[in-house]
């Protein structure tokens, strides 16, 4: 009995186990949700998960309050789309360019803001987001501005040896692609966070002066965190464009940055799994509330406020609380265990 629970706890605590669970869950989603409406929502969830974990890496781990996530998202979307639509560049090369340029934009913003902290950085990044949005609106000869870009094709079909052609016009396949990338991004960030780099970033977040005294090049690491987090947002942007098929600057207005920030906070900042749940909740909740009609966004606003008021650690904290409760119910454990 005792051994059984020990094994069970070891399994529950093992990272590999949860990664397998997540992979299986992703695999099952389009099988459970067969209609195109919910499959659409699944893809939106995957895109938002990328945005949220990218921001969390910058904010939750490196401690940099970044309100420019909407700009990186937009840069990824516009760069890849313009390359595909104007120059006929193949999707995956355009995708790479979008990710790269978002990352470079993140680095530049971080280099610029390297002396700033706290809310000053927040507003500098907000300023960056406002300017990026305004450029998308005003540079009509390049971006079409509010006139929009339409009929953006989905990613080209994949022909893998020994497999049938994978067509991304099919929403299930497109979900596997975006969710697969979100999963990869998660793995990458998770690996970074668990490596010495993660400790370095946390040290900078906790106390920059002490970190510097330990010989850590704080500025370089902050730039690194920004580059990584903004590249992930850029990838989300590329998928957004090829999935929705329509691109207008309004999708990347600064309020989008606050929505992404809310996903991170509601999920639980400073953990990677928290923002995943936060992104899913804040994507699905407004859809589930469609049934209530005009009250929909009022309830949504109240819900966000209440979550913050009563679960300041986000959904992760709530989950830990519940998990601790259930663990205490497991047999063979003393009160003090």
């Amino acid at each position: 009995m005792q051994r059984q629970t020990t094994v069970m706890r070891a399994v529950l605590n093992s990272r590999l186990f949860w990664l397998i669970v997540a992979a299986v869950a992703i695999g099952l989603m389009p099988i459970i949700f067969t209609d195109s409406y919910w499959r659409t929502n699944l893809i939106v969830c995957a895109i938002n998960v990328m945005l949220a974990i990218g921001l969390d890496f910058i904010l939750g781990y490196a401690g940099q309050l970044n309100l420019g996530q909407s700009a990186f998202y937009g840069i990824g979307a516009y760069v890849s789309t313009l390359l595909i639509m104007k120059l006929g560049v193949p999707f995956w090369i355009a995708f790479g360019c979008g990710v790269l340029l978002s990352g470079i934009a993140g680095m530049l913003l971080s280099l610029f803001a390297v002396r700033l902290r706290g809310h000053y950085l927040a507003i500098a990044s907000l300023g960056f987001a406002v300017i990026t949005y305004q450029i998308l609106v005003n540079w009509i000869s390049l971006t079409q501005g509010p006139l929009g870009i339409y009929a953006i094709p989905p990613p080209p079909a994949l022909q893998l040896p020994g497999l049938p052609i994978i067509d991304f016009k099919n929403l299930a396949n497109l979900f596997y692609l975006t969710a697969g990338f979100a999963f990869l991004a998660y793995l990458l960030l998770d690996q970074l966070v668990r490596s010495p780099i993660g400790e370095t970033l946390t040290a900078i977040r906790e106390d920059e002066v002490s970190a510097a005294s330990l010989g850590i090049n704080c500025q370089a690491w902050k730039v690194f965190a920004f580059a990584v987090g903004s590249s992930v947002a850029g990838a989300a942007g590329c998928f957004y464009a090829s999935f929705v098929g329509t691109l207008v600057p309004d999708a990347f207005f600064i309020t989008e940055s606050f929505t992404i920030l809310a996903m991170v906070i509601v999920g639980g900042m400073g953990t990677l799994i928290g923002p995943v749940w936060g992104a899913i909740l804040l994507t699905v909740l407004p859809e589930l509330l469609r049934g209530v009609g005009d009250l929909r966004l009022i309830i949504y606003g109240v819900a966000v406020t209440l979550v913050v008021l009563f679960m300041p650690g986000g959904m992760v904290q709530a989950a830990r609380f519940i998990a601790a409760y259930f663990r205490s119910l497991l047999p063979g454990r003393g009160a003090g265990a």
Partner: protein
Amino acid sequence: MLSVLLQQGINGIVVGSLYVLVALGLTLIYGVLVQINFAHADIVTLGAFAAYFFTFVLGGNYLASIAVALVVGAALGWLMNALIFAPLRNRGNELLPLIATIGVSIMLQNTMLAWFGPIPFAFDTPYSNDVIRVAGMFFTIQSVLIIVVSTATIGLLYAFMKFTFLGKALRAVSQDRETAGLMGINPNQLIMLTFVIASALAGMGGAMLGPVLVLTPFAGTSVIVKAFAIVIIGGFGNVEGTIIAGLLVGLIESYTTQFLDPGLIDIVVFALLLLTLALRPTGLIAEKREENV
């Protein structure tokens, strides 16, 4: 051309003085609490609606409606602090109130939408369409009123901050918490006072912005982004800086419209903001909060 330049100067100062009223509230709250109230914009909107309904539904005087909006704003500020900011104080994460107020903002906007509907209210005051023309220039009595009322309000606030004990205490807290503690001031009451003053200014600003901007439940959001910029350019928590920056942004708006394109206003304002941050990270005007650099 000179008259056009002067005219645009006046236009900029009228709009700028309204921005000052909104931005002052943000900067006061930031100064004392180092926190951002995202729903500040909606207090502006609610102030505008309070003035509208007082004038057009209850048949009140427009000048009195400014006072009504001020009271409504003050009450909302009190509620905002009591329900959101006070419970979240000392929870460790400085972002919690920001996110909570985003939730409040979504709720308030959509509640207003349910009540007032999306169709813009035509909020013409008795002074809106009275035009004075002098030397090739024009202004409405409403814009004269805006300048007089906001100058008086800002002057009163300034005197309060400079010369009264409470005002000095507020400044003390925003500059140095520990000193404030030594002065024997209850910080909780001071924070409450700050919220009430800040939101009263926003409500009052709303009563005067209502006739200027397109009055819908989303009216305040068009002002708040600029208010953020003003607060930074002026230096977070710095009252004098905010006043100057507010007028400056108003002037940028009118001169950008004249010489470039109104679509570029935000780019110019935020480019100035980034420039300010690059050159003088504590704001254009003062260097008070050294610890942020």
